[in-house]
């Protein structure tokens, strides 16, 4: 397994406000797989994603990415880990408002010695004609595509997407998912997608279902539905 999560526990707060968010989660994702983490609100899916991305620490357990343990890494080592391995996409795009599309992407291009080709990426993501626009001049979908491009430019081995379509309409969501699918195929990027959207589970290789901080079920799709054919997005 490329991503190996073993018995990860995570809690927040103390005393009366103590909440056990992850109660010993164990799961794994193969290299190059697209995986959806599903669950209801408060099930711990974003927390799990953040722990895998090194944005949050765990109380106990182990997270291995490509065989490397990330639990217990020092701050600087986590920087390197995120810089070299991870790409993040959030529900809210968090683009730098006074940088153009190209410039927003360039911010992360310099984090790696072997970035993807900017123009190719802009073309793949359909941003070429918007490359000199500022975020405020873009639609939500275009902004999210810019955020994806920013995450991809450094050619991450693992792309973590937290509700990437949460703020988008159905059509735009489909476009984004098609894009992710395309990227996965093109760059063999392993993807973990946290979503509420039940339809997305059909387009990915693997599904992890969380409930109350525990893995209720995990399975591999025998049949993968292309994103363009997904319904009820």
């Amino acid at each position, binding site marked *: 397994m490329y991503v190996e999560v073993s018995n990860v526990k995570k809690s927040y707060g103390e005393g009366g406000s103590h909440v056990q968010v992850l109660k010993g989660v164990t799961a794994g994702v193969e290299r190059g797989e697209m995986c959806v983490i599903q669950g209801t609100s408060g099930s711990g899916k974003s927390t799990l994603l*953040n722990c895998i*991305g090194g*944005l*949050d620490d765990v109380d106990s357990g182990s997270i291995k990415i490509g065989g490397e343990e990330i639990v217990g890494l020092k701050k600087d080592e986590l*920087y*390197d*880990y*995120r*810089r*070299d391995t*991870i*790409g*993040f996409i*959030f529900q*809210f795009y*968090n*683009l*730098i408002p*006074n*940088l153009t599309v190209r*410039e927003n992407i*360039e*911010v*992360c*291009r*310099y*984090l790696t010695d072997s970035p993807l080709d900017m123009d190719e990426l802009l073309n793949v993501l359909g941003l070429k004609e918007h490359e000199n626009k500022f975020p405020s001049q873009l639609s939500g979908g275009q902004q999210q595509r810019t955020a994806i491009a*920013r*995450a991809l430019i*450094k050619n991450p081995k693992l792309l973590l997407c937290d509700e990437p379509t949460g703020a988008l309409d159905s059509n735009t969501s489909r476009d984004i998912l098609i894009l992710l699918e395309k990227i996965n195929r093109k760059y063999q990027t392993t993807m973990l997608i946290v979503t509420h959207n039940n339809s997305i589970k059909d387009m990915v290789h693997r599904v992890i279902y969380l409930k109350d901080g525990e893995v209720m079920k995990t399975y591999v799709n025998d049949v993968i539905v292309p994103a363009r054919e997904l319904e009820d997005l």
Partner: protein
Amino acid sequence: MQRVLRKRVIRSLKKHFVRYSMLGLMIAMAIFLVVTIVGSAETLTKGTKDLAVDTSVEDGEFEVFVPLSANEEEHIKDMDITLNEQFYYDYQLEDGEDVTLRLFKVRDDINKLHYVSGEEPGDIHDVAIEKRYAAEHDVKVGDSIKIAGVNYKVTGIVVTSDYDAPLKSIADTSCNSKYFGLAFLTDKAYEEFKNSDKAQKAETYLYTYKFNKEVDNEGLKDYLNDIKVDADQIDDELFQEYWDRTGGVEDELLDAVSELRDATNDVNDALAELSDNNDDINDGTTKIFDSYLEQTSDALNKSGYNVTLNEDNYGKELDNIINKSDSSIMVLSLKNAKKKLNGLKEYKDGIKEYTDGVKELSDGADEMSDGVNDLDKAVNDTLDEFDFGLSNLTSFLIQSDNPRIFATKNDKLVDIEVGVFAGIILFILLAYVISVFVVHSIETESSIIGTLYSMGVTKNDLLLHYITLPVVVSFVAGLVGLLIASTGVMAPMIAESSYQYFSIPEFDFYVPAYLIVYSVVVPPVVAVIVNVLVINNKLNRTPLSLIRNEVKQAKNKNINLKNMNFISAFRIRQMLKEIRSTLAVVFGMFLSLLIFMIGVNCFILCNNIAKDYADDTKFGYMYTLKYPEEEPPKDAEPAFAYSCKKATMGYNFDVTILGINDDNPYFNVDTKKSKVDVVVSSAFAEKFKLKKGQEVVVSDEDKEVKYAFKIRDITKYSSGFYIFMDIDEMRDMMGKSDDYYNVLFTDEEINIDPGRLYSTTSRADIVKGSEVFTSLMMPMIYTLSFASIIIFILVLYLMMKVMIDRSSQNISLIKVFGYKRKEVKKLYLDGNMYIIALGAVVVIPLAKLIMNELFPFMVSNVACGLNIKAPLLFFICVYVVILGLYFLVNAFLVRRLDKYSLAEILKNRE
């Protein structure tokens, strides 16, 4: 990545142009202010220093009763000293205006003339006139001026470093060029004047000197002190009269001791002679006695009695024979012999007692003679030690003690201290404003930063990015401030009062290297430090915390406001929500007020000095006497003044011990018959932080003597540092006669021969002196006050803008709800008035209090008290002005409320 982010820097600058222009304006103003104030002071300081070098300013000067002999001058020159005669006459012009011109020869070695305009006098009746006098009397090159009946052509307007402050007397409190000036004549014209019998006063024999190598003022002074002069040589009747009364005492004392010694010697000699005969007398009487004993012994032996009589046994032996003898004749003879021997023995003992007495008397006379010799020696030693011999030296003034030299430089020390200090406060304020901006920026962009973090962008990358703009703005603004200030655009205004008071040429505005460094380095460095500290702290949060823009909940947000109306409750909630910005506004107000209070304290000090000098100076005239008359004039109150020194904060100040009569009407002092318990002036107590019961020590540096007193009371007297004590006790303490005095206080001007006077100080002079102080400080006071008001407006605007910017989402939201502009203003802007109104109540007195503590250090070189108490009305006025400025800023910010569109809340999440 920085290359890309740099593009953002420029766009951020464009987007927040108002914010950064305000910040830049503030920095530029701060630098402009500091460079202008300090630069002006440095210009005058450097200018007068350079001038002093160019004109070869003296290292010191001294006056003598009679001109030095050629040998004495030679001896001084051998001490590697350049000596110059700068004799002068004080000539009172015959225009009835009491104008004195001090006539010198044109100098060519020490204290050379600097020609502000025109040229050196060439013809015999050419003259150069000192600049300030020329200005006051509208004298220009080419004009004619009449001195002692001779018309002189003015060929030059000059300044000279030894009259930087053209004080008539070094004891004068202020210059008045309307009544005193300098004129420089050609050598021939000077001699012509000297021989013309037009001189109203004796010539003053002033010498100036410069050390060629090693400075040795003490050595020169010792040498000059040792040059004695015969009083008869001094051609000054007033001196002669005074000397006869005072200086002749030495001779009388020596004569009396000499007479005593002679008389004692006579007595001693006589007694010695008498004593020399003692042995003869004793020997004679012993021989007579012994001879009679022998005769008696022989007679008894012949009568068959074998006895030898001596002094000790004759009585007993004769009694034995008398008792044994049957012969009545024999018994009678023996009784007669015994009686005779007894008589001889008594005579002999009496002679012995007499000679012993003579011997004791003689010994006593020796002792007396020794005693007289001791007395003679002691008197001579004392006379030697106190050097009652008349020294030719009448005054000795080294450069640093001369109030005329470098007066401009010394006056400008306050400006430099104040300017630098104001700069420090400005930079703290600047740092604070920048930090508020940075925090605001980071909080606004928290989720972006978190996202970049999550991608692996490091803290250092972000740090570098976020400090770029404030650092560049700070640097550029500092540079702009420096460049504008360097043009000297406002320098003439700051320096004008100095040019109109001191006798100095106008100097080109000069910015010293340290100010350049200060201007271009300090602002960006402050920006870097503040940003690194603040950003570092902010970026220590986890990426997740940044993405979520988690804000710590203030503990005091849950206060119960149930009984309050909605508007008030909302404003309080808003204030609590923005507590940090709220405090930023108050802190900004506090720092602006600190700068304002520097100017205010200068103003209050000057104002109080002017008022207190006028109130406290009860006498009309104070005459400091060189040769007091035996009896003080009628209607004049005599006093005894003695000048000492006391140092504080690195400066040595004159302190006058003033002996006064208990009923002196001019000082509200209850003197006690004590040499220890004294009363000190309030100015002295304020400057040296003295309290009742404390001990104070002053020193007479010339005599290397220290005087210690205990402060019994502090009397309100602002015009000078005084220690008041009973005049009789002071005379006794200083070894002066019972009627000695050297100062006279009067209500009205009295007629005293000018030759007796060192100086005359009128109440009007003192009051004018205090006003001069004010006028010299006013430009700086205006600048500081104006700058602090502008800075306060900028800080208030920027901080309040940050506050409402932070609430932009909420403002958009309530607009969506249907609130109108006026209502939005009520909720988000008008609430700030509480902050300003309440904050001002606290920070106005606090800023004044803090500045009161710091202010003494800024005026540490100024010889005056530190009455910086402000009336209540002042605080009320400041309060009203602050509220007024708030309303002004508020009016500007109202327009900003319109800029928050309804889409804001729809576009963004919170």
